[in-house]
């Protein structure tokens, strides 16, 4: 088995907020998050809005704002990911495919934007080859972002990320606003990268899409990883009640909702964040939740076995 390219252990992120006047408070947004991404695999991270998905991407690249504090261990190819290392790796070995098309510079043509100021020989050819790989002709280099359609802009964002042959691609919601066919095509590009040995971290709220594209799926709830398992197992045997509830709520699988909503950052009770909505709640749920590992699977629940 391949060694993990990226390991995240017990990551917590909190923000310092000014509450009233000069009174400050710490707002924990991610608590005890775990994740592993391997070469040649697409690992999807699924969670509803506000579960801390985008923050994870920003933490990995050292892009958190100044008032954020980050604890826990992040390892890249077995080595601690320090601030210096992040800065050295990002944009080269570790790249981000951002969420929004607004991440392109509106006043710069696509070509120079992909070259990022480099002028040495071969850069132009490299860019042309990358664009061609995603079905964009040389005329795209002369275009400004506003001239691109939604789908083209997505492909430019991916091109921009893979010019340098990255080891780890972090894709933060790369498919919103695209119809099924276009989204599948974009995911096909990620599959291709993974097949060439790149590790892909695919962040999304769309479970259905994650299941069609990814090898492994990690489910986030209120800033905590509740379960990580192979995409193929998903739903067939959910270990965590939240995962089971998510599965049953899909339009193709019953469309049955559970009541309530995800707790706000800083308003969670101790113990399992899902406990207030869980139909299998027990007394132990209020305490520390042990993590169970079964092979490569990861389950954070006091109950043994699968949810029927």
């Amino acid at each position, binding site marked *: 088995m391949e060694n993990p390219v990226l390991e995240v252990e017990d990551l917590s992120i909190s923000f310092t907020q000014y509450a009233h006047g000069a009174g400050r408070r710490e707002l924990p947004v991610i608590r005890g998050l775990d994740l592993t991404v391997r070469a040649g695999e697409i690992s999807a991270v699924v969670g509803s*809005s506000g579960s801390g998905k985008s923050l994870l991407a920003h933490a990995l690249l050292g892009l958190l704002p100044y008032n954020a504090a980050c604890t826990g261990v992040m390892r890249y190819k077995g080595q601690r990911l320090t601030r210096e290392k992040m800065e050295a790796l990002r944009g080269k070995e570790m790249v981000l495919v951002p969420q929004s098309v607004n991440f392109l510079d509106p006043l710069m043509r696509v070509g120079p934007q992909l070259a990022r100021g480099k002028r040495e020989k071969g850069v132009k050819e490299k860019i042309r080859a990358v664009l061609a790989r995603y079905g964009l002709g040389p005329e795209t280099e002369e275009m400004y972002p506003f001239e691109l*359609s*939604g*789908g083209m802009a997505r492909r430019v964002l991916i091109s921009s990320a893979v010019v340098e042959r990255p080891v780890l691609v972090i894709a933060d919601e790369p498919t919103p606003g695209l*119809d*099924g066919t276009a989204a599948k095509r974009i995911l096909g590009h990620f599959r291709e990268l993974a097949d060439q040995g790149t590790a892909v971290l695919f962040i999304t709220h769309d*479970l*259905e899409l994650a299941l069609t594209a990814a090898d492994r799926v990690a489910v986030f709830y209120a800033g905590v990883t509740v379960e990580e398992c192979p995409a193929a197992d998903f739903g067939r045997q959910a270990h965590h009640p939240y995962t089971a509830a*998510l599965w049953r709520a899909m339009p193709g699988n019953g469309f049955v*909702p559970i009541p309530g909503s995800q707790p706000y950052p800083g308003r969670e009770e101790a113990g399992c964040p899902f406990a207030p909505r869980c139909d299998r709640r027990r007394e132990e749920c209020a305490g520390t939740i042990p993590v169970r590992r079964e092979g490569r699977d990861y389950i954070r629940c006091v109950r043994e076995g699968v949810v029927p």
Partner: protein
Amino acid sequence: MRLEGKSLTFRYRKDRKPVLEGITISIESGERLGLAGPSGRGKTTLCRLLAGYETPTSGEVLLDGTPLSARKGPCPVQLLWQNPETAVDPRMRMDRVLAEGGPVAPELLEALGIEPDWLKRWPGELSGGELQRFCLARALGPATKILLCDEMSAMLDYITQAQLWEVLLAEAERRDLGLLVVSHSGKLLERVCTRVITL
């Protein structure tokens, strides 16, 4: 009640080709019509025309045979937007946002899971899913007969999606509303609609 779009053609700019050309569509009370189609085909534009936010370049929008624009009072056709963040005034607290659509039954608020203390919050203090609950409550005012749902649940997780649809379908059934459901998700349309058309 019957909402009809008759050979609707619409272009945003004179020198461009029209986004919609000769589209005819009709929605009746009690019906749930699904609208599918790739991005850029004009699904949202069609919703805007049917709700009266835009005037068609040619063709007409009729409600029970009279033009939508000729009616007075609250419009019986309401549009539920894709992005709730941009559909509420960021400078109004949620109780005022809700009041824009007229009085809302407390039972509906409860069914939608809207907590009483959310009413005193600002839109920026609520998540997309929570805002969409308010938008749904606001669009379901007493005068509403036809509701156009433009990807109302695309950005929500599946549990929140299923929660909102459960409430909306029950309400539509009780009040004999007509729904137009725009979505990229074939499974969703199959689940909630009585008939589906592709643009």
